[in-house]
């Protein structure tokens, strides 16, 4: 009877616990996790910030989930040390847990901005439900917010605040938000849609200081300007939560490198979710795709492998679906390919239907897409990307407004 240990109760950890239990109902199974809230849907926290979803709707498992599953749950504790030789971890509360098989699903931490005044109240990251609760508490009296960064988190924070009528200034490096997810043409359309709803975008400036007595009252920009604001959201990306790993103990790159069974360079130690760096389906090289569906899938597969049923993980794929006021966006894979002859980019803009589509092909294989407006058939395209086979239909058909599953049939 192997002793299993899972670090982290994000979706990767939760799915892993369930997968392990479905294959091995009896062996000891321990969870160590920082968040003591019941397992919840992390992508929904921005809806809580927006006020569109009550916080009690966040959990996706019942409160007695761990007990029912027979999991020894050490929640509210942080792993501070991993001893691979002894196969044991230690938590910040001094708890020591030994394991035979370990899954690291510790997730990621938001990057912070180390400018003067960063400890002021009213400056937030958007990662956990606890942070969102704190933001909600701070919201009354906020008239203007500054969002640092235009990535997924910065975007979602800005959107949630705009939806509540709060003026938002977004400081970004590229000329439009979501530059990792979309191409410049789609980016311009998205920026326009956001600006129509009150977003102000500032390009090429950084925050040099946060000003205020107790809570933030303004930010000072690198060009010397001061912007009054009552709230700041930092969305400068995340870094894998690997502080507890001894140096050189495990092979890492941007995250913990894993093989096709999601096993790390240490025998019996696996990684899944935002902390793991597995093969990217369209890039063909290890890549961290820190998104929920990837974490969910990796958690399930890692759990099966931990419990002794070998399952191959084919690879991860970056993808997002976002609703921006009346504009829907779905994006996946490689949308800004390297300038090489063997990549083909097809675009189609339909002003009448208000749609924009961009497809990226690599040697007849679909490797990336951006859909703006009418995203319902996006899953069919995504499946084509994931399948990775050469297209049997004229790729132009995929751009047509009438494209659907039947278009792929003979």
């Amino acid at each position, binding site marked *: 009877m192997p002793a299993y240990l899972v670090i982290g109760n994000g979706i990767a950890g939760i799915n892993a616990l369930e997968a392990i239990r479905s294959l091995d109902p009896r062996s000891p199974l321990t969870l160590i996790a920082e968040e003591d809230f019941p397992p919840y849907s992390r992508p929904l926290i921005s809806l809580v910030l927006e006020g569109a979803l009550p916080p009690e709707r966040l959990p996706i498992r019942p409160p007695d989930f761990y007990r029912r599953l027979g999991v020894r749950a050490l929640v509210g504790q942080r792993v501070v040390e991993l001893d691979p030789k002894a196969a044991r971890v230690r938590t910040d509360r001094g708890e020591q847990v030994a394991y035979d098989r370990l899954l690291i699903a510790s997730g990621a931490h938001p990057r912070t901005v180390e400018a003067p005044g960063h400890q002021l109240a009213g400056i937030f990251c958007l990662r956990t439900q606890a942070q969102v609760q704190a933001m909600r508490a701070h919201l009354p009296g906020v008239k203007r917010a500054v969002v640092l960064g235009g990535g997924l988190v910065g975007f979602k924070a800005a959107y949630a605040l705009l939806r509540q009528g709060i003026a938002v200034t977004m400081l970004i490096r590229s000329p439009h938000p979501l530059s990792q997810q979309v191409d410049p043409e789609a980016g311009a359309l998205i920026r326009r849609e956001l600006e129509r709803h009150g977003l102000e975008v500032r390009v090429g400036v950084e925050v040099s200081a946060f000003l205020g007595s107790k809570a933030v009252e303004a930010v000072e920009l690198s060009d010397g300007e001061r912007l009054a604001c009552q709230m700041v959201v930092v969305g400068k990306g995340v870094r894998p939560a690997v502080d507890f790993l001894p140096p050189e103990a495990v092979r890492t790159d941007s995250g913990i490198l894993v093989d096709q069974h999601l096993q790390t360079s240490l025998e019996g130690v696996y990684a899944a979710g935002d902390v793991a760096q597995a093969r990217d389906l369209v890039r063909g090289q290890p890549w961290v795709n820190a998104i929920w569906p990837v974490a969910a*899938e990796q958690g399930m597969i890692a759990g099966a492998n931990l419990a002794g049923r070998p399952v191959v993980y084919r690879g991860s794929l970056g993808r997002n679906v976002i609703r921006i006021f009346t504009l829907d966006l779905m994006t996946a894979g490689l949308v800004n390919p390297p300038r090489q002859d063997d990549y083909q980019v097809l675009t189609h803009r339909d002003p009448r239907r208000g749609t924009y589509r961009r497809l990226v092909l690599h040697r007849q294989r679909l490797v990336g897409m951006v859909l703006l407006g009418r995203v319902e058939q996006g899953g069919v395209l*995504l499946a084509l990307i994931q399948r990775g086979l050469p297209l049997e239909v004229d790729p132009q058909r995929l751009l047509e407004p009438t494209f659907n599953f039947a278009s792929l049939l003979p």
Partner: protein
Amino acid sequence: MKKVIIHPERCVGCLQCMLACAVAHSASRNLVGALQEEPRPRPRIHVGVTPSGRGFPNRCRHCDPAPCMAACLPGAIFRDPTTATVLIDPDRCIACASCAMACPFGVLRFHPTFQAPPGKEVAVKCDNCDQRQAQGLPPACVEACLTRALTFEEPDQALKRQTDRISRLVLEAVPYAEDLPASLSLLRALKQATAEMNRR
């Protein structure tokens, strides 16, 4: 357990299944009433068109495991344990379209329904006509399909028919096309030729 089985070679693209589906998912459950309802009921089976201009009735396969269920952020998609039907709870749904991103068949749609909270856009897809089935009726799309392109039967039975057909094809050299009547083979040959001609 009986399932809806699609026989694509028999679809003539008449869209009757879509009409019947919309009516079956209306509050009034009849065509005239359905056309006056707000929100207007919409079909959950979608007849798409193939490159040669033929119809294909596309509906939820109720996959197991279901990618939409795994992708659902608020946990609104669930499987009815007795019928194995994948269902969506309109009260939990947030219409985030994560299911649409996960569905390789493109069967999810987003719109208000009479069952959803008023004014709320929700994810909608085939529910295998669970309410009709509870009354002993077959799914509406099957009932509407005059050419038997949609059947409601034990999968084993449909598979056996297919096995028999292939056996005859192999052992007795009976051409597969014998199932296609002269009328449709003429129409389809001409449509196919026209489609190819227009592409070159």
